[in-house]
């Protein structure tokens, strides 16, 4: 039971770290290929 609680707490602590970095906007140059 204790292990599950500790694991749950670790996930809660780690998740904000994982989502702290990301692309917010991408303006990608594209060219048609013939």
């Amino acid at each position, binding site marked *: 039971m204790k292990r599950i609680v500790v694991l749950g707490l670790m996930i809660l602590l780690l998740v904000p770290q994982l989502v702290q*970095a990301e*692309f917010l906007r*991408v303006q990608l140059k*594209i*060219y048609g290929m013939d």
Partner: protein
Amino acid sequence: VRVAVKKIDGVKSVEVSLNHGVADIILQPDNAVSLDRIRQIVLDNGFSPREAEVVVKGHVMQKDSQPVLKVSGLKDVIYPLTEAPEAKGKMVELLKTTSKQTEKVVTIRGLIEQPKKPSMTPRLLVREFKLEGGE
């Protein structure tokens, strides 16, 4: 290509202008979408992806004495950083106070070139950046 990119989980909106040759993609907060994935989908739909103007949030740090940005997601990507003249040397100043122990979270607006080889990670040219949360 617009429909295909819009289907990616985490993409909020896509506008494609074939006249200007630009796909403008807005992403939802907390997404795990990589630039490689967008590029691959564009390629799969008959277009050739090139450089990208991006707004990206990540951890700035020193790696092998070089400034880099780490973008977490499904797979961590490390972009080497180069500072554009309009960033006025502020990134260099920030990095003086950054070490492996003190990573900083920043939002960067800049340019990522098309990698010459698929295995290469291109440089991110920093035009402007904002430090998140003060530290």
